[in-house]
């Protein structure tokens, strides 16, 4: 199923010569030397680790490089790691038949990231969702409001330190029933 499971080696130029489509990242890697490319699990799962300050530029460059379909944007709360949050953007290229997953770390103390709605308008609802559920603020978003939770909700439910809550159940004749 997997040729190279869980490889952590960055995709250098020499590693990208195993097919005609694998060098689609070469121009991106050249223009963004600080971005670390990685291939996980299957060949169709390509991951780029992008610094937060180059995020919008990288997404725009990826769009020019053929990854012009916006697929997905979501947040992940890696509670104890630094940076705490990660925003994962999925792009797709119909031309190269390839996906690109962009992972950006976002600080836990000041969760702010630039919005990519200027590049992909489809990110609008997804960024609102991440803001709503994780409290990550997207700078430059045209309408950053809660989308799934009620407007007056307090807290951001998908954060790991947000409890799922519980309803106390009272059992008959239980000593703890009081």
């Amino acid at each position, binding site marked *: 199923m*997997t040729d190279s499971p869980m490889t952590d080696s960055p995709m250098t130029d020499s590693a990208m010569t195993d097919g005609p489509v694998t060098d689609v990242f070469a121009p991106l890697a050249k223009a963004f030397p600080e971005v670390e490319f990685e291939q996980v699990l299957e060949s169709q799962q390509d991951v780029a680790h992008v610094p937060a300050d180059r995020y919008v530029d990288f997404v725009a460059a990826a769009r020019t490089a053929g990854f*012009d379909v916006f697929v997905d944007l979501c947040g992940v709360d890696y509670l104890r790691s630094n940076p705490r949050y990660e925003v*994962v953007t999925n792009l797709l290229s119909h031309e190269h038949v390839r996906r690109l997953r962009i992972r950006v770390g976002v600080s836990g103390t000041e969760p702010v990231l630039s919005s990519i709605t200027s590049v992909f308008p*489809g990110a609008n609802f997804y960024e609102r969702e991440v803001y709503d559920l994780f409290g990550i603020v997207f700078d430059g*978003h*045209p309408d950053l*409001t809660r989308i*799934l939770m009620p407007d007056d909700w307090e807290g951001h439910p998908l954060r790991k330190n947000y409890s799922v809550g519980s309803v106390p159940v009272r059992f008959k004749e239980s000593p703890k029933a009081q």
Partner: protein
Amino acid sequence: MSDTPNVVTGDLEAPTTEAPAEAESTSSETADRKREVHDMWVAGTEEPAWMRSYTDEGAQEILAAEDESAPELTRGTVVEDDFIFDDVADDDELQILNMGPQHPSTHGVLRLHLELDGETIRRVKPIIGYLHTGMEKTAETLTYMQGSTNVTRMDYLSPMHMELAFSLAVESLLGVEIPERGQAIRVLLTELNRVSSHLVWCATQGTDLGAVSMLIFGLRDREYILQFFEKVTGLRMNHNFIRPGGVAADLPDGWEEDIEAILQKVPQGVSEYEELFNGNPIFRDRTMGVGVITPEECKALGVSGPIARASGINWDLRKAFPYSGIDKYDFDVPVGKHGDVWDRYLVRMEEIKQSLGIVKQVLETIPGGDYRTTDRKVTPPPRKRIDESMEALIHHFKLFTSGFKVPAGESYAAVESPRGELGMYVVSDGREKPWRLHARTPSFNHVQALPTMMTDSLVADIVATIASADPVLGDVDR
């Protein structure tokens, strides 16, 4: 932000491919403006504090009529959310209409905030979240074995695809191989599910455009498939049948006859519907050139599936990234030209036929063998083995009490659901429960694209456009 609960900042324009004009404004400016707005609302109100946050729909505050900040409202930079019609309407003679969330034509609890100029829609704002049940949070508390019971409830019209996407994502982390029979059963069930989902679409699209008998016809034909699902999985919906490691059980005895009956009855029905729709002048007039979306807009907004194909994008995940051995079967991908409701109708009708073709091929070529992986760390042992083997008993106990561990890592798996690209992003930290599960659901994007399809069209076209987008609100809100 959270201290201004009911104030929606920013302009309300429908998303377009152009960059927003105010994208360059710095964060400090934005923060200042928000603070200013907040002060304005609180200072301008005469109501006691309890009234301000009394309803669960949001606070109700009335802006003083002579407030200096009123121009902000007219520019559309501040829009009050609930109940209060802002000054935009009076100045431009726009009428604000709330459609939903209990409107029958919104296919669930979708609410549309419409700004009408006479009969023409000028701005649309979809408001969602009425069906949000926090399924992504729930998924973090369920083991991978229980996970498919959760995800199958998201898109309740294509539960098989939800389960399949989840299973594929988990299996890619586990690195298990599914036997060929298991893969064929998965293809059989998902393609039947595509037919049943498209039949519901067909029923509701007809009803929304006035062909009320279409609802009965579509649901009647879907019933054949649901009865088959009930026979196979035990449930009509929310099957929890496709699980990480394979499928829950083998197909029941006599399933071939049931499939043959479906293959005989459903195409007959479909040809009847085509007869009903194709030459119908009302249906043609109400769908042709309505709700148009271009290929570029589809790509930028993440619109996928039949809507993208109707606009001329030749893209199907079953062809591009084949999953579950679907590349073994011969089928065509219908592609439209104009991106309007009529083309979506044609594309979906053709997809029903192609999916039935795949079902026929599965029926003819299904291999024998195991229907789930033999990896005992993932698959529970057969009931008989539990009586004989201590090890089997331990495995069974461990699997059903604590589940199986999945290697740390992250994976994204996508399938072509009846609505489009349905992806599951699973992050594992090496334990029995996912650290994070994110469902990339196609309806979410399609609801987001509704303003693009609707703006500057007529009010009467709203229902046609919503029906053609085929949103499932359980899928949108999760």
